[in-house]
């Protein structure tokens, strides 16, 4: 008859428990992905919000949320797409709440239209066309906007965007085409106005 032996987990090296080891492994793995994908989350948020401070907050929140739910991600190879969706969704929510806040402030104080607080970097990068582009971009449907932002990021091919978003390459191409076309329709008059000055 086989003898049963009671195994206690307290006998691990240096007094470490199984939970500690698992936690350390999870943290290490996430640290590697953080260094790799931290910029991606920031850039997605920056593309939606067009504001450095807000984009940093949103990227931070997205990375923290991804860390909290890291064990639920079964396929770790999909981390980038997963993080992109989290950052994009958080950025959209932030932008909507910012718009509501601006509308509320406008109703109460009746100020002239003021853009969100911008840093020196934002001011340096902005121009009149850029402002119109940002506004036109904000009016794009979310599906088109996400694909267009990913396509504008350095180093993203059509295949990579398809893998990130979870759609076919043909859908990526058509979304990019329609997004650019809609932007062009909205910016054409501004482009002519700027050009004639």
């Amino acid at each position: 008859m086989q003898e049963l032996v009671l195994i206690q987990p307290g006998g691990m090296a240096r007094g470490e428990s199984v939970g500690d080891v698992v936690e350390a492994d999870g943290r290490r793995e996430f640290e590697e992905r953080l260094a790799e994908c931290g910029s991606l989350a920031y850039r997605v948020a920056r593309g939606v919000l067009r504001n450095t401070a807000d984009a940093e907050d949103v990227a931070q929140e997205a990375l923290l949320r991804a860390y909290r739910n890291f064990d639920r991600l079964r396929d770790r190879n999909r981390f980038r797409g997963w993080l992109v969706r989290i950052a994009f969704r958080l950025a959209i929510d932030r932008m909507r709440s910012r718009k509501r806040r601006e509308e509320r402030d406008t109703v109460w104080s009746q100020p002239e239209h003021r853009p969100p607080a911008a840093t020196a970097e934002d001011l340096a990068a902005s121009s009149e066309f850029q402002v119109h582009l940002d506004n036109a971009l904000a009016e794009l449907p979310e599906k088109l906007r996400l694909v267009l932002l990913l396509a504008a990021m350095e180093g993203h091919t059509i295949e990579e965007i398809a893998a990130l978003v979870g759609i076919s390459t043909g859908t990526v191409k058509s979304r990019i085409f329609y997004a650019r076309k809609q932007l062009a329709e909205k910016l054409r008059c501004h482009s002519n106005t700027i050009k004639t000055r």
Partner: protein
Amino acid sequence: MPFEHYKDALIEAAATGAEPRGELRTHLEVCDSCLAVFTEEQALFASIDAGLQATVNAQIPPSLLPRVRSRLDEAGAPGRSWVTNGFVLASAAVVIVALFAGRALLQTNVGHGPVETTVKTSVPPQVTPPPQKQNSVGVPPVEKNHIPPRQFAIAKNRPAPGTLVSGRTEPEVLVPLDQEILLAEYAAQWNLRKRGPLVAQDSDTTIMALLQVAPIQIDELGVKLLAEEKEQ
């Protein structure tokens, strides 16, 4: 009008970034106005692309990753979200409630049990003889066959420390060794639907006689007057 005819084709060609081919290319070679429009459209899409790239490829703030790491330190282990913590807390609460409920149920059963009540009321400790005397008297112990199963059981010995208690379902009562016989007899009486006081009546009279106290002998009081004491 040639421009209206080629307008959509020009815009689509500029949007895709591809060079115009076929009839459109031929037309652009001969129509300067359409060529100018096509060049403007190409410039517009180039501006859009440049603006988008400037927006999304901005420099990452150097404070981003350190701030994220410090917040990760505060957050603790990955995956321990409020849902997981809530599940753990709910499980712990269920276990605690079950523990208290089981304990309360056990106490309720013991508190209403006839055995314990009888031991406290009908068998006072003064009446009980010492165990050696009881053995010498030779009160016959009640046989186990007289006790119906699953009604009463008397634990003669405490379990040794560290040993597991058996999984018997009938109630067990721990009693001092000298009360074991009386209690077993009472249990038999109880199972025969007799009442508790009968146990005391049916118990051995010799045990009762040994504990009877003789009446106190008081001498007659001699009363002396104070005057007589003074004379003496």
